[in-house]
């Protein structure tokens, strides 16, 4: 019998298994973001866009596209990854994962990789839908892809952590609903923070989501409310923080093992 150095097939098995769940719910997975995006354009684009024609030299409709994609990336990454690891905990099938010759790194790669893939696919679907409504430019495509990948990876990791921590389905929803969505709405997904009064703007700068959204928007239109270097730093910092947490979870067996 061969000694496994890296259980590539194990990672593949988890990844395929998770993607299989995605394929089974393909219709709702795709239809939902398409409809939501269209609604955003009808409501925000038409209603607000008719009053605000341009933000930082970009038409309002086009301006909100990166924010929309980020919002979906945050919530989808978290929900996919948290559900992916929570469900086996809930049904008890986690026994197989714990008894398999897979390392913590491989488990994380499988689950987080699949969750990130799904949310990136959805992000691209939103981008495609949005491009029907408004003309979209991508000034820095390589950066756009990098921000997309890094953000999807960070939030999927974060979702994985929530899934490990959660003791009930309602807890899976808790952080996305109570923390992520408000932070995104307040974080300049649909406006430039330069449009805010000075005090609000100062407060908003403590919201890390502002940096994520602005970095991503910069890769589209070359404009940003904050420094792009800080955006990149924030994105990488978030990823690093989640990696540390995940490592700690597996080192201590936290909530996975007795």
């Amino acid at each position, binding site marked *: 019998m061969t000694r*496994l150095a890296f*259980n590539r*097939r194990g990672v593949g098995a988890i990844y*395929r298994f998770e993607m299989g769940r995605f394929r089974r719910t393909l219709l709702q997975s795709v239809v939902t973001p398409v409809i939501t995006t269209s609604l955003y354009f009808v409501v925000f684009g038409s209603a607000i866009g008719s009053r605000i024609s341009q933000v930082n030299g970009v038409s309002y409709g086009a301006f909100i596209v990166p924010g929309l994609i980020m919002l979906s990336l945050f919530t989808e990454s978290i929900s996919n990854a948290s559900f992916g690891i929570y469900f086996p905990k809930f049904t*008890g099938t986690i026994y*197989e994962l714990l*008894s398999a010759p897979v390392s913590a790194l491989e488990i994380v790669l499988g689950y987080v990789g699949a969750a990130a893939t799904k949310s990136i696919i959805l992000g691209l679907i939103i981008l495609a839908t949005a491009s029907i409504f408004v003309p979209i430019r991508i000034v820095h495509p390589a950066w756009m892809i990098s921000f997309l990948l890094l953000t999807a990876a960070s939030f999927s990791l974060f979702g994985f952590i929530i899934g490990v921590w959660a003791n009930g389905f309602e807890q899976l929803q808790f952080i996305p609903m109570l923390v992520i969505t408000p932070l995104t709405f307040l974080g300049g997904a649909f406006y430039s923070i330069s449009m805010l009064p000075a005090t609000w703007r100062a407060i908003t700068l403590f919201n890390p989501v502002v940096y994520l959204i602005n970095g991503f928007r910069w890769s589209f239109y070359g404009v940003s409310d904050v420094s792009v270097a800080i955006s990149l730093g924030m994105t990488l910092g978030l990823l690093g923080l989640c990696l540390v947490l995940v490592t700690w979870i597996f080192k201590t067996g936290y909530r996975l093992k007795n």
Partner: protein
Amino acid sequence: MTPALSISHVTKTYPSGLQALKDINLEIRNSEIFALLGPNGAGKTTLISIVCGIVTASAGAVAVDGFDIVRDYRAARTRIGLVPQELNTDTFETLWATVRFSRGLFGREPDAAFLEKVLRDLSLWDKRNDRIMTLSGGMKRRVMIAKALSHQPAILFLDEPTAGVDVELRRDMWALVRGLRDSGVTVVLTTHYIEEAEEMADRIGVISKGELILVEDKVTLMKKLGKKQLTLQLQERMTEIPAGLGDWHLQLAADGNELEYSFDINAERTGISALLRRMGDLGVGYKDLNTHQSSLEDIFVSLVSDRGGSRP
């Protein structure tokens, strides 16, 4: 030869403070069927879970085929197949997807022909495209076995494989386990039932309250445990046992209303028919009779109390 499994000085105390295992030492030989026998809460599942990496031992060491389960966890776990006690299945998946997943998870190359054989052996092939939630309980139990076998383990753990399984399927399962053993797989199973251990095992370990109180070859153990008692309810009260029945070493019970006869179920002749014939000859009538085998619980009590004096 390296034992299939070696457990030394393993203890487990759960965070609740409950000590589930106390200094367990055990070696399982290659290609044997080992039955771990014990009442509810004895620690059978805890022990298996430690070996399989689901529960962390508080102390002690475990090696599978010589590979330490912590240091060499990949090598150790690749060799292990586990069928847990609880029916935990991926309800939304098809049977085929779930066995393919198991094989991949354990690092094995895809092998549709092998998986087909496993499913056929378990009479599940026709169900391969069905979702698991549409299967019956007995089928789900077999699905769990199929998952464990899908990656060709060298040692298979079956935690109460026949709980909630009908007689026919139970027999099939026993045949399957024997077939596995004959093909070189080591099997460790847990059960509450002496009969099951007797039917299946080469060796038996008895665990009670977290202690492994005995490990013995089945044949030897069955001799020790194989005492049964016949009780005859007499038509007429008796004050002393007739001399003509002296050969059977009978005892009077229930104030002279019952006769008791202890016999060895493993003996060539139990002596029951001769006893009843002689009673007929002597005109000793009986209203009813029943036999009773010491329950597992009785045996544990006697085993524990037998060893009580010698333990610290």
